[in-house]
Structure formats: structure tokens, C-alpha cells
């Protein structure tokens, strides 16, 4: 059985190791430790424990390849931003979607004709192209545009 120190409990030694005591008390304890083998051993064990954890962790961290971390993060962000479109379009089956797309496109065209007569400048920030219809042996089609210059993109997956 290990004996416990009669003056300081382990919790206090813990605070001492963590530098959480007043400088006065800290000084008293460090003097005590020089003469008390029990507290000395506890201090050593606590420090040893910390060292093991710090070193073992740093060894593992060295094995982590962080080269692609930043790139992966940016890709994930972009993917999540695109997912919005994907979710919307995946919701429709391809055929139904194509019909809806054509109708929407035609509506947009009708609108642009009105626009041309009313407010011309709106054209500048409009999409680069309007998709009237899409057809083919495809399993899915997405139509989207880039944020900045509204460059229109059609993406299809071959069936």
C-alpha cells in the first residue's frame, strides 16, 4: 500500500504541476517536494503521463498527411454549394425534368422578350444561354450557371 502525504493531497499537487497555484504556494510546495518522496513521485508521475500523451499524439500527428487538407476543404465547400442544384434536379425523373425544363426555359424566353422592351440592362447579368430543350439517351441532366458571370452549363450523364 502506498502512503499518502500528510500535508498535500494529490489534487493540490495536480494544481502545482499545472501551474495553477499562487506563486507563493507554488514555492512552498516545490520546497516541500524536495523533502517529501511521496509528493516528488506524484509530480514525476503526472509529468510522465503528460509527456506520454504529448509525445504519442505528436508521433501520430506526424503521420497525418495534411498536404491536401486545404484543397479538400475548398472542394467540399464547392460540392456542398453545388449539392443544392443536384438535390433540386435529382428530385425529378429525367423525362419529367426535361419537360419541365423546356417549359421553364420557354417561359424565361417569353419573359426576356418582355424584358427587352421594358428594361434592357437586366440582360447584362443574365445567363449566357437559355436552354430551350434537352433530349437524348441520358440518365440525368443538370442545368446550372456560375455565380460570377452566369456562364450556363449543361451537364448530362450518359445512360
Amino acid at each position: 500500500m502506498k502512503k499518502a502525504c500528510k500535508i498535500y493531497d494529490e489534487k493540490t499537487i495536480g494544481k502545482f504541476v499545472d501551474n495553477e497555484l499562487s506563486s507563493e504556494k507554488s514555492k512552498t510546495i516545490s520546497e516541500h517536494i524536495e523533502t517529501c518522496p511521496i509528493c516528488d513521485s506524484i509530480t514525476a508521475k503526472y509529468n510522465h503521463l503528460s509527456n506520454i500523451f504529448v509525445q504519442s499524439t505528436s508521433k501520430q500527428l506526424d503521420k497525418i498527411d495534411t498536404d491536401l487538407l486545404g484543397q479538400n476543404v475548398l472542394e467540399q465547400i464547392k460540392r456542398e454549394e453545388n449539392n443544392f442544384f443536384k438535390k433540386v434536379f435529382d428530385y425529378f425523373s429525367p423525362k419529367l425534368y426535361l419537360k419541365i425544363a423546356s417549359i421553364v426555359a420557354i417561359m424565361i424566353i417569353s419573359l426576356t422578350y418582355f424584358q427587352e422592351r421594358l428594361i434592357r440592362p437586366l440582360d447584362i447579368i443574365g445567363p449566357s444561354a437559355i436552354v430551350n430543350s434537352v433530349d437524348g439517351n441520358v440518365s440525368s441532366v443538370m442545368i446550372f450557371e456560375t455565380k460570377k458571370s452566369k456562364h450556363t452549363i449543361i451537364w448530362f450523364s450518359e445512360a
Partner: protein
Amino acid sequence: MASNIDNIEENDLVSRLKQGQEWAFNILVNKYQNMLLKIAYGITLDREESLEIVQDVFVSVHKNIKNFRQDAGLSGWLRKITINTCLNWKRKWERRFRWSHQSIEPKDENKLLRAKKDGNNPETLYREKQIELLVMENIGKLPEKIRVVFVLNTLEGLSYDEIAQHMNIKRGTVSSRLHHARKILLESIKD
């Protein structure tokens, strides 16, 4: 004075991040990835997972940077998000019954045997490796509330007050949890 300069840089970085500048985001990632990985690894004890977690943290930072209050301190904020992500991550695994099956680096056990064969002072080396393994294994078994405190104290070197603030607990609780952690861990390597 140095911290002042750091602050200015941090403020500048944050405002660039808020403007959505991509390269500012790269700087952020480079600057903080190691710190966050350390926390994530300390809590999960899994390399792959901690990498995924940190990646997730940066993604949510990107989403939420607009809501970040400049006065809160960037590293503290990042640390908080990381801790939360880790804890939620663990819950995610627990639901899939994966966490409980996870053992600490089984590959290291082979190394351990090798170390025994060709180490300089085989007995000591073996014993040290074994202690390390035991400690890490038992850190993994610590209740998460206690583990997080131990990680922030030991790996991050945060003061009791800082830990208390991060975890929304009292200073006394920090001290008790640390004591508890140390007691359990020392118990586990007692011969």
C-alpha cells in the same frame, strides 16, 4: 506587443474571410490545422477521423464566418467548433456501434514486439512502449467530459480558467476532472 500585432493580423484575416477571399481561407487552414488536428486526435485517438473532423470544422467555419464576432478570438472559436465536432462525431459513431469496437492502433503492437527484439535496451524499451500503449488505450476509455478536459490541459496547455470557459463548467470541476483522469490513468499503468 507581439500579441497586439497578432491581433491585427487576425482581424485582417477575419475580415478577408468574411469577404470570401479564397486565399485568406488557405492561410487560415495552414495556420490552424495543426492545432485543431491535435485537439481532434486527442479526443478521438484516430488519425483518419481527426483529419475528417478538422476538414469538417473548416467547412463549417467557412459557412459561419459571417456570424463570428471579432472580439471572441479566432483560435478559441475554432477550438470550440473542433471540440463540438469531435463530440458529435463520436455520437455519430456510437450510433453505428463502431466506436466501442475501436482499439488503439493494433499495428503498434507489432512494432512493440519488434522493439522487444532489436531495441537497444529491449526490456526498458518494451516496458515504455507498453506503458504508452496502456496510457493511450485508457485515455480512450475516459468518459468524454473528462477526456476533453485532459486534452485541453495536456495537449493545448490551457489554464483551468480557459478550460472552464470553453466547457462552461466551474474551475473546481476542471481540477476534479483532471485529478480523476490522472488517477485512472496512473492506476492503469501500475504494475
